[in-house]
């Protein structure tokens, strides 16, 4: 609970601000039969941001990037104002959907030439949880202005939304009013989608409007219903997101869906001519739903079981491959799985040694030859000197003669020599050629064994 407020307060206030204007605009959207216009405008704004990236504006949070989004939104507003045909043979929804699909595809094409795939993903889900107070403040100011415009022109906007034909007959310039409406709408959407994502904005527009239209016919009442449900859903949804530890935006969206369903069911029962029949239907529906869910649950766990078995099989293939050295998922017994076929041998950098058969104890000579690095070699020499001095001296000679022994280990070897032989025969760890010293050492070993 300690961080609840530091983390959740900005998103919560942002949501309340969104509820304020979106619940109202949603009523317009439903009246105009342009349900998906927000998706479409949001996608146009996103295309603007993407094109901005093409021009080198990489910071999608910057004002320059936002200007690109707004410019495209105005363009979108013009498109939607012009596409409202008086003759409604082609529903405007078809056109709106088309604009959405085309702009989304264009954005993918543009993004291909740029960096910044992530903001396209953000458009869908938003980053409500990550909203900053400065953004909340900007939204509050912008929405106050947009809200004031809608308040001043509320009668005109409502009239062209509800009765465009009458407006035409009265000689209104409906296209100009439509354009004005879509510009304010588009500005609202560009600001909200950046933070809340398309899904949440869509639900904030449409869900309160649907609930309100179900409950009332008066626009003032509808608006209040939208606001109240919006605030309740936001509060409960965000708390649920916190307690269940689930992503915030999707949680609020899903919860709004559940609330809508509950309201619809309650209304169905309350408004039914015969409550008993309504209740019976409701009960039947629940039973069917539970049965269906049961089938999914059983079927799903069966399918999951078999697919998990597949993965396990794949992994055991990987181990098998490593053991035979023929599969590219091998675990490190060779530098390359194919190296074995070519006869190349490479150093085992970190690979664990293959599990060896219990072998007879190797001689110091063998251990010395197996040592991969000088450090291990020197260790064998030391062990040998302690337990089998004769072998140890031979190995020390071999260690010092090896051109690949680095200077540090040569100087350690020299110290060992000094300790065991009482002299170093003039061996110099840094010298390129130590033949004289090594010959003298060899002769000394010969004397020792003879003696």
């Amino acid at each position, binding site marked *: 609970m*300690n*961080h*609840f407020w*530091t*983390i*959740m307060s900005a998103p919560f206030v942002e949501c309340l601000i969104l509820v304020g204007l979106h619940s109202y605009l949603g009523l317009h959207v439903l009246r105009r039969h342009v349900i998906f216009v927000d998706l479409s405008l949001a996608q146009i704004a996103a295309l603007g941001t993407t094109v901005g990236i093409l021009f080198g504006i990489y910071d999608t949070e910057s004002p320059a990037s936002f200007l690109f989004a707004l410019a495209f939104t105005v363009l979108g507003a013009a498109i939607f104002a012009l596409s409202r045909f008086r003759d409604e043979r082609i529903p405007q929804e078809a056109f709106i959907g088309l604009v959405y699909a085309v702009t989304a595809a264009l954005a*993918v094409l543009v993004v*291909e030439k740029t*960096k910044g*795939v*992530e*903001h396209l993903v*953000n458009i869908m889900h938003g*980053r409500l*949880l*990550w909203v*900053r107070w400065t953004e909340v403040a900007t939204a509050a100011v912008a929405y106050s202005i947009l809200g004031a415009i809608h308040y001043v022109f509320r009668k005109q906007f409502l009239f062209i939304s509800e009765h465009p034909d009458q407006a035409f007959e009265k000689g209104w310039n409906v296209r100009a009013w439509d354009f004005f409406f879509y510009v304010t709408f588009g500005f609202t959407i560009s600001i909200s989608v950046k933070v809340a994502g398309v899904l949440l904005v869509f639900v904030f527009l449409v869900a309160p409007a649907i609930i309100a239209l179900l409950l009332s016919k008066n626009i003032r009442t509808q608006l209040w219903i939208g606001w109240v449900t919006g605030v309740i859903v936001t509060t409960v949804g965000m708390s649920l*997101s*916190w307690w269940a*530890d*689930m*992503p*915030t935006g999707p949680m609020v969206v899903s919860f709004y869906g559940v609330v809508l369903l509950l309201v619809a069911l309650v209304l169905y029962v309350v408004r039914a001519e015969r409550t008993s029949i309504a209740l019976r239907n409701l009960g039947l529906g629940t039973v069917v739903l539970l049965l269906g869910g049961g089938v999914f649950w059983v079927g799903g766990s069966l399918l999951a079981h078999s697919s*998990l078995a597949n*993965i396990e099989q*794949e*992994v055991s293939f*990987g181990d098998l491959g490593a053991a035979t050295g*023929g*599969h*590219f*998922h091998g*675990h*490190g017994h*060779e*530098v*390359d*799985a*194919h*190296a074995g076929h*070519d006869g*190349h041998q*490479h*150093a*085992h*950098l*970190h*690979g*664990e040694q293959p599990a060896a058969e219990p072998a007879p104890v190797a001689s110091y000579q063998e251990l010395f030859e197996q040592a*991969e*690095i*000088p*450090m291990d070699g020197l260790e064998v020499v030391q062990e040998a000197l302690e337990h089998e001095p004769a072998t140890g001296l031979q190995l020390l000679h071999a260690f010092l003669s090896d051109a*690949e*022994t*680095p*200077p*540090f*280990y040569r*100087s350690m070897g020299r110290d060992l020599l000094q300790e065991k032989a009482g002299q170093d025969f003039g061996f110099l760890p840094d010298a390129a050629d130590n033949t004289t010293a090594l010959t003298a050492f060899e002769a000394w070993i010969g004397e020792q064994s003879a003696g």
Partner: protein
Amino acid sequence: MFTRFLRLATLTACLLIPLPALATFEVVVTSSSYKPIAEYIGGDMVHVTNLVEGYQDPHLVRPKPSLAVLLAEADLFVATGLDLEMWAPALVDQANNPKLRSGQGGYVAVSTGLHIAHAPTTLDRSEGDVHIFGNPHIHTSPLNGKVIAQNIAVGLKRLDPPNAATYDANLARFENEVDVRLFGKELVDALGSKTLTKLAATGKLIPFLESQQYKGQPMIDLLGGWMGQALPLRGKKLVTFHENWTYFLELFGLEVVDYMEPKPGIPPSPGHISSLITNMQEQDVKVMLAASYFDVSKVKLVAERAGAVPVVTGLSVGGQDGMDSFFDQFDIWIPTLLNAYRQAGQL
């Protein structure tokens, strides 16, 4: 007359168009970080193209026609080999180039032979972007760079046996350059590559150097290169966005306290961010590290709330300006981290 003109024109055109060298092999690598290594080993004999740019998320690549075309014409395909590039097999299938199927000669898995960090014990996609064969961001350690180079050299020699000696020589040169840049020339001369590599890979290098004397001075004083430069970073704590730098952080001795993602590839939830901030405050973690392909604003926001310094940097070659070679990565990451800890007052 006209035919003569035509012949002349054709001849001139032929002279103007530079012909590609005949013995050039087309090598296609997945990560941009493998490209400079393949060029180092292959020299003039190869032309290398990478499929994933440094600013892209290597987990998600949108297959486009050009990628399949590249693979169709490739002689050698160099991939990580763990399941980082889940999109690669489909692309290889589509390219219909039988040379490249895994198990064929034209395929090189550069992770072969590496000790792979964080191989999971449970297999379940609900754990997020889990790589069932372990952490695949192998190019973040210079030591792994040597293994990558060895694997590429094996592939090139298989493809072009007559030039095997050249590839071996280039490989030796590359390994030596990594050693010198990583440990400093003095130490490489004194201890040799094999010993240093083994000690560093097992995390024993620093204690070893601290315990040894050489020519009357503490051996640790000989340590140069990136390891020497990064000595002040040892034991420092940080939070990363994704498990991107596991190998780098392990080698240079930094401690990852937590990840911004609760599980790899799964976006953070409010509860996770809350416990992350608490965790950071309790353990006094002041640095957050993220690859440039993540959303910078998220990193900055959490860093702001936790009072930490956000570090956003390229994850692989091409991930940010100036990160043009395999070596540039470390030349950028280490000073950037040193700066961040200085800024955070922990250095």
